[in-house]
């Protein structure tokens, strides 16, 4: 805190004006998140208020209660969606880190046939958006017969060109001499990978974890297309049904529950981002496409 106050004293007038306007801008962009926080804790009466209020006056956990109660009455309990989401996210993150790190290490430090071809394809597929080819993906999932299994959730996300790219750029910074030295000392490739590359690439690993968690934790495509069994669907899918039900009669009544669910969706992302923010910025410095 003292450091910040010291910074203020050092700033010129134009910098202070800039800071204040940026703060206002940031606050404005932050509004939706404040809204979710407040809305999730509003009691029923405040949701119906006119004029509408922004800040919650008497916070309750009623909405969270409703969220859990509402679904326990249905066919699939709320906890099942949460459980599915957690399993899928944890498995996917580890799978993505594992495959991307291996691939990135090889692409960065090894020489082999077709390397430039593989790299070219990865660069091209940076712009790949899975949403555009939902249909063939659906067919492939059906042929592999992994509908309604966790594999159907996880496998489509494992190959992530962005993850490999970021990882490769980061591993490029590790000096070749270091790896050569380890080789001379008799370390096997696997040992080099585990003892040397893995620790040194940790910021990139953290970044990829963040990106993957954000993508998978919020994904509805897999649940909508690949899962027909209601017990295999994930939390964001459930929330999207809440939100679309909101356009019917009970817009406002559903809003409180949806906001509570939205908050549950957001918090893990925020916590993980805050934990790894520094690592992420370290990685993004090397994100350039050269």
């Amino acid at each position, binding site marked *: 805190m003292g450091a910040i106050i010291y910074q203020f004293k050092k700033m010129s007038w134009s910098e202070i004006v800039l800071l204040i306007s940026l703060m206002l801008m940031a606050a404005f962009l932050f509004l939706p998140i404040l809204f979710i926080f407040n809305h999730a804790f509003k009691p029923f009466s405040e949701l119906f208020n006119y004029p509408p209020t922004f800040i919650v006056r008497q916070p309750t956990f009623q909405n969270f209660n409703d969220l859990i109660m509402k679904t326990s009455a249905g066919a699939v309990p709320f906890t099942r969606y949460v459980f599915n989401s957690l399993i899928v996210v944890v498995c996917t993150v580890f799978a993505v880190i594992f*495959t991307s790190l291996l691939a990135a290490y090889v692409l960065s430090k090894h*020489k*082999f046939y077709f390397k430039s071809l593989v790299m070219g394809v990865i660069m091209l597929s940076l712009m790949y958006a899975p949403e555009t080819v939902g249909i063939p*993906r659906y067919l*492939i999932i059906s042929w592999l017969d992994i509908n309604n299994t966790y594999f159907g959730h996880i496998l489509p996300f494992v190959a992530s060109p962005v993850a490999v790219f970021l990882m490769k750029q980061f591993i490029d910074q590790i000096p070749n001499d270091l790896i050569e030295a380890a080789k001379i000392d008799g370390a096997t490739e696997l040992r080099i990978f585990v003892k040397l590359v893995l620790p040194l690439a940790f910021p990139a690993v953290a970044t990829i974890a963040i990106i993957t968690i954000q993508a998978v934790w*919020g994904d509805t495509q897999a649940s909508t297309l690949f899962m027909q069994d209601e017990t295999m669907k994930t939390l964001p899918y459930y929330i999207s049904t809440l939100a*679309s039900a909101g356009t019917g009669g009970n817009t406002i009544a559903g809003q409180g529950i949806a906001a509570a669910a939205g908050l549950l969706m957001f918090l893990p992302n925020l916590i993980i981002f805050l934990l790894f923010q520094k690592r992420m910025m370290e990685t993004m410095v090397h994100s350039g496409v050269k």
Partner: protein
Amino acid sequence: MKPNLTTNPTRMAPGFPLQKMLSTLWRQRLSFIFLAPFLICFTLFILVPVFMAMFMSFTTYDGFHTPKFVGFDNFITLITQDQIFMKYALPNTIKFAFFVGPVGYALTFFLAWLIYQLPKSIRDIVALAIYAPSMVGGIALTVVWQAAFSGDYVGYLNNFLMKFGFINAPILWLQSPDYFLNIMIVVTVWMGFNVGFLAMLAGFDTVNRELYEAGRIDGIANRLQEIYYITVPSMKPQMLFSSVMAIVGTLKAGAISSQLAGGPVSPQYSGHLILNHVDDYAFQRYELGYASMVSIVLLVISYFAMRLSYRLFGPKEGE
């Protein structure tokens, strides 16, 4: 594509070229084993789907019968008969992509630059506040936008505008075709400060400080010139990565239309993007061949967008 002969030729086994290649491949087997998990998944869930979509775009296919080859019929239908595509999906996508793409991108750069002017201790907090909405993701924010743009007196925007006398009666923001696309754009830009934004923010750190000194001596008069002549050229790689991320973001953004509308098709197709058109044909009408063709058109468009960004920010010859 010619294989990249990076190994030292003298160390290769003698014999025919093919034999040579095979023995080199065998010596490099470890590299391929390391690469395998990624490549298998990549082929299965990215490469094959794209090629399948290409193949399916020349067929008519409903998901049950065997696909029937129809040549370029789908493409011809798209250009000559698909009124919804020509009247709504294409113009909407162009407008949407322009504002979310280049305009949103410029805004991202500008904001990142402004933030970079702040002292380091405050920078992270402001950056977090701006990055946060993209973290929440579309689904969780739907409730926010529905409340904000709700068409009755209780809607936050209506209430705000009426309180200050801009409008007299509430506006049906999400039901009226006049506003729908614009709301989509605002919302998407709002949530668009994503990884690309962080990449740019980090990119400013890579600019060599001495260049600014040198620039001042060489007669750079103001901050704008500094950005144009020093900052942007120095952080081109990050700018390129960020612009590729912006293209992906724009491609993916079709979902926002159905989330705001609460159904697959927006009011009077006002927010109908190409991606919604694909979904509409694929999962409402089960014309999978036609839908694949539309998605291929979309991929081709985004490919050219990417080529354009490489032109702008990519490495030049001899750099």
